């Protein structure tokens, strides 16, 4: 099998059984084989992509989300509301309703509050802990994929003249086009205004910068000092929160937005970056036992178990690892 190409794997009966998880023996065999043949990883991923295309099944990651959603439902003690009441019961189950009298609470800089009709907007919020992502559909049909360790506040039904939401953390937006109602993402001092487009916003409070990366369409950014910047597809804006500067660069889409499709991408990443990303994606704390050790890691993973990720990193950096109670300890090989 050492000379297998993706199509050979994808045609192999036992590999298919592994993919469908229909035969525990095949699963055990292939998981072991893949772990011990990291050089074949690209071919394996390509084989799984082929199967994803042909198998007509919900991808594992989405299935896990669905399963979590159901678990949340059955673990919620009061089930007095019928699920049909809301097509997205987790919204009800997992969120606290915030009722604000006016949108004026989140001031949009171009608009004076007095011109806004006193229209009741019911705000809801959704938070993800480490290790969890979720997909939300807003009342206008726009979708938001919310990354781990992130919170989004949004109106249950959008205001009649403006679509405004607030984000802490990171999210990927696909905004339904509506030129009459600007869509605005508020992240601290920075607001991103769009008409209909796809973009990623990363505004984790622990990072002292906010990045907005545009995939499609056009967005306009505005900071608290009313500086403006327009982005075109493939461009990224970086806002330094400390000195309020706004700059424009290009970006690597997989590294920036790959998280929403289950990619974990490291480019010359130091320990702190690696540890933060793993904690966010999997909810495992990573501890380096020899803090003087410096290394940088480059590599990417697609929908891997945390053990596989850490095994690969450990292997290439000559580290040993132990996993215990959702903590990963790394130390130098003896």
């Amino acid at each position, binding site marked *: 099998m050492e000379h297998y*190409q*993706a*199509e*050979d794997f*994808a*045609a192999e*009966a036992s590999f*298919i059984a592994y993919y*469908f998880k*229909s035969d525990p023996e095949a699963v055990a065999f292939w998981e072991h084989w893949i772990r011990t043949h990291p050089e074949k990883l690209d071919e394996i991923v*390509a084989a799984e*992509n*082929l*199967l994803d*295309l*042909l*198998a*007509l*099944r*919900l991808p594992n990651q*989405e*299935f896990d989300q*669905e*399963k979590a*959603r*159901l*678990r949340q*439902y*059955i673990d919620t003690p009061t*089930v007095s509301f*019928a*699920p*049909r009441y809301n*097509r*997205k*019961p987790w919204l009800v189950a997992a969120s606290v309703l915030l009722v604000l009298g006016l949108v004026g609470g989140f001031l949009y800089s171009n608009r004076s509050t007095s011109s806004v009709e006193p229209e009741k907007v019911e705000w809801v919020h959704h938070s993800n802990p480490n290790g969890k992502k979720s997909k939300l*559909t807003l009342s206008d049909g726009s979708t938001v994929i919310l990354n781990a360790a992130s919170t989004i506040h949004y109106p249950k039904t959008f205001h009649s003249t403006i679509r405004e939401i607030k984000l802490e953390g990171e999210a990927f937006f696909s905004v339904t086009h509506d030129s009459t109602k600007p869509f605005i993402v508020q992240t601290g001092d920075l607001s991103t205004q769009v008409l209909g487009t*796809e973009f990623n916003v990363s505004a984790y409070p622990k990072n002292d910068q906010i990045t907005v990366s545009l*995939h*499609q369409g056009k967005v306009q950014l505005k900071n608290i000092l009313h500086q403006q910047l327009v982005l075109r*597809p*493939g461009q990224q804006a970086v806002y330094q929160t400390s000195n309020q500067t706004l700059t424009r660069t290009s970006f690597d*889409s*997989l590294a920036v*937005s*790959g998280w929403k*499709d289950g*990619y974990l991408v490291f480019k010359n990443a130091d320990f702190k970056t690696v540890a933060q990303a793993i904690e966010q994606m999997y909810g495992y704390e990573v501890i380096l036992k020899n803090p003087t050790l410096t290394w940088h890691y480059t590599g990417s993973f697609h929908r891997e178990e945390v053990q596989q990720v850490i095994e690969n990193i450990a292997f290439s950096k000559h580290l040993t690892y132990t996993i215990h109670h959702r903590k990963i300890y790394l130390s130098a090989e003896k």
Partner: protein
Amino acid sequence: MSAHTEQIHWQHLKMGDREAFMFLYETHYQALFAFGCRVSMDRELVKDSIHELFCELWDRRSRLPEVENIKSYLFTYLKRKLLRESQDAFASLTDTTTIPAERSYEEMLVEMQSDEDTKQRVQHLLSKLTPGQLEMIRLKYYEQLSYEAIAQRLQVQPRTVYNQVSEALKTLRKHMQVFSSLLLFLFVR
């Protein structure tokens, strides 16, 4: 899973056993999803409907009927739900024939994709296969039959089926290399 084991889980579910419930969910999910995609074009709707179905099962757990074939009970339940949804969507139309009929494998693969661009690319990709290859791919990956079973059904040698499937995959992969970066990065232009 044997019908007997399933019955045990069903009885446990009626007594409020979460793990038995989740077990039924996990073992039937993908089949329900694939079936749902045959009935509805909208994969998000299929996901939501399966979710609702299980929420309702859980809410009514103590009052669930005795069911002989759990799988077909779930399938019928889901189909009813999806048809009701599409009837709601078509409520303004009197002509009920507008409710989408069951679709072909090829159509389903295309519809599965989340955006128009990818749909077109998948359509293009599948057009590179011969009808015979597409049918074998369908039997292999959708019906999940063994090479022997496919060979028997199509009256050819198992080796022929394997070669055809392998050839089809090679073709797909070749055309996917350009495309896969697009499929994976989905939003790169």
